[in-house]
């Protein structure tokens, strides 16, 4: 019974999942070739491990470990500050390479993609495995990072495939082989099934993905809600989740939080940090043509205790000038003098498209028009000269001190090793190879 395949269909759909191996660390090793084969981690500015190279993982380094712990476990570890600019460039390029093979590419996260390969065997005159291998090899050759790939009949199965044999794995799971891969797979390792549902399923004697898939549909319908039914179909080789190519169309909320080192009890400085977050959130809102109807203000103390307040706005807006009033009120409400703060956060919530805003009774349309022109000018200047070329006065005190003093203030090499014509804010959109030639 256990050796019976789950489905008789070989390839009704072919979905590929690509997962970059130790992405941030791999990008660093690609632009710093002297770090290849060495234990490397990123996340220095956070004080914890964001990504660890496979060499570091082999030494017991795990994501989320504090830098102090890492140095104990692996004294020769190389610790780098995050270079999101470079990682983003690698990520975009990775997706573009995938798009050479199929237009249906879903950018699932910065280092993961789903690609719909259905029907491409004809164009490539070969099996899906061959196409997947070509995609994988192209990424390795052109970017210098390795990726693991899984190809199967559904997204859930493709993800199981990509995870199966990391790093640089290539796992093809046709319909007749699904049961082989699910047999030893613990149920909580299935995408979409978390610890609570696993514990629940355990009560029915379901501990592996295969046991779950082999349950009849009536059982699943009786005891589990829609998402788990969908997963059941996907595990059985029946694709429910399509590969979604459109990018995020809108936001429900925009949040900006930033930690600073060392923690401060200077009220002006802390408010300035908050104000800068507000300006950043508003810039993002305006870029997506959204306006907020609620403002959330958060402060976090050095002992990690947080306080927050949710403020309803009387008019949708994405202009800091309108929000400084509520921001100050919210700040005063939660700020405790003589406390050390380490982080401030702002959330613009209840976002509406800016075109849908009508004038309210007490609005001053002349002022609104004026403010709209002011911020349009600000956004235009930012485009030409870099973000924060113009700031509200309340944010200026942030310039008095680096975001992170000391070791955590380390910046990526790309930010300091500039070419002629580049400046602190604006750089060429190509990754730099750090080699001495």
């Amino acid at each position, binding site marked *: 019974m256990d050796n019976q395949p789950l489905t008789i269909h070989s390839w009704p759909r072919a979905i590929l999942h690509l997962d970059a191996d130790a992405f941030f660390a791999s990008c660093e090793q690609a632009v710093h*070739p002297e770090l290849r084969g060495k234990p490397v981690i990123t996340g220095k500015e956070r004080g914890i491990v964001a990504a660890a190279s496979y060499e570091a993982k082999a030494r017991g380094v795990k994501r989320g470990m504090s830098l102090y712990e890492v140095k104990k476990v692996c004294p020769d570890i190389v610790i780098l500050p995050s270079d999101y600019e470079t990682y983003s460039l690698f990520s975009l390029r990775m997706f573009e390479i995938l798009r050479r093979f199929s237009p249906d590419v879903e950018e699932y996260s910065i280092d993961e993609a789903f690609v719909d390969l259905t029907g491409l065997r004809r164009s490539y005159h070969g099996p899906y495995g061959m196409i997947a291998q070509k995609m994988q090899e192209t990424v390795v050759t052109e970017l210098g990072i390795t990726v693991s790939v899984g190809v199967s009949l559904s997204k859930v199965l493709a993800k199981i495939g990509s995870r199966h044999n990391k790093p640089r794995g290539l796992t093809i799971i046709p319909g007749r082989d699904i049961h082989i891969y699910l047999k030893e797979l613990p149920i909580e390792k299935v995408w979409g099934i978390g610890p609570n549902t696993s514990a629940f399923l355990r009560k029915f004697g379901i501990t592996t993905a295969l046991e779950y898939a082999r349950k009849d549909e009536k059982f699943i319908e009786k005891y589990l809600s829609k998402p788990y039914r969908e997963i059941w179909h996907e595990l059985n080789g029946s694709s429910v989740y399509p590969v979604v190519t459109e990018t995020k169309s809108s936001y429900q909320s925009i949040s900006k939080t930033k930690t600073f080192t060392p923690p401060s009890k200077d009220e002006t400085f802390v408010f300035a940090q908050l104000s800068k977050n507000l300006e950043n959130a508003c810039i993002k809102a305006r870029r997506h043509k959204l306006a907020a109807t609620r403002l959330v203000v958060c402060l976090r103390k050095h002992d990690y205790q947080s306080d927050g307040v949710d403020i309803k706005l009387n008019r949708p807006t994405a202009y800091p000038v309108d929000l400084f009033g509520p921001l100050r009120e919210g700040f005063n409400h939660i700020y405790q003098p003589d406390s050390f703060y380490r982080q401030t956060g702002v959330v613009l919530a209840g976002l509406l498209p800016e075109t849908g805003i009508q004038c309210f009774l007490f609005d001053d349309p002349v002022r609104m028009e004026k403010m709209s022109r002011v911020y349009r000018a600000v956004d235009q200047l930012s485009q030409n000269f870099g973000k924060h070329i113009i700031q509200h006065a309340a944010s200026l005190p942030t310039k008095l001190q680096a975001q992170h003093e000391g070791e955590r203030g380390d910046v990526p090499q790309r930010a300091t090793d500039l070419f002629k014509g580049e400046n602190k804010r604006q750089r060429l959109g190509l990754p730099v190879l750090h080699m001495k030639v």
Partner: protein
Amino acid sequence: MTVNVRSLYNLNMTRDVKEDKLRSRVRDISHFYREKGRMPSFSEIGELAGFQSKNAVFKLVNKLEQRNFIGRDEKGRLIPGSIASSLRTLGTVEAGFPSPAEEELADTLSLDQLLIQNPDATFLLKVSGDSMSEAGILPGDMVLVDKGQPPKSGDIVIAEVDGEWTMKYLKKRGESVTLIPANPKYKPIKPKEELKIAGVVTAVVRKYR
């Protein structure tokens, strides 16, 4: 097979004339919209175009809708499409007509396109040494390195030799490989083990001001 050249000419002429007519009709409706602040009704469109039959108006409206000059709301009433945007003096790009100036520029290459053949595989590298100075690559220059092109003999490559990276000409003769500098101070390198090539140098950029 003889082709009736005159009929071809007439066909092209007719097409241009049709476009001109359409262009002037779009201008008239756009004018109306801006003057009155509303879209003309079907009969008003008829008046503007000089049509007697309603059918002719329908045909025109469909054509305009197809080209996105006008649209329709949920109730089926006409709403402005691209005619609502202001007309530029150079040409009506929003209206779908390429301006003569822009048509000439359609095939230009940007500097980016000229210098970068494979945008997904091209990297920047700042040169620090002078081993290729006689090839015109000086310390401080920026070179563009393409990892997507298979290296050929005669290419300038970034190669790893004995754990060190170097930029040299690649010379392949059968099985033997030599790395050749462009500076008499340096000697050619004959790698003993397999050569690792990081990419091909496709351009050098030096900014003076």
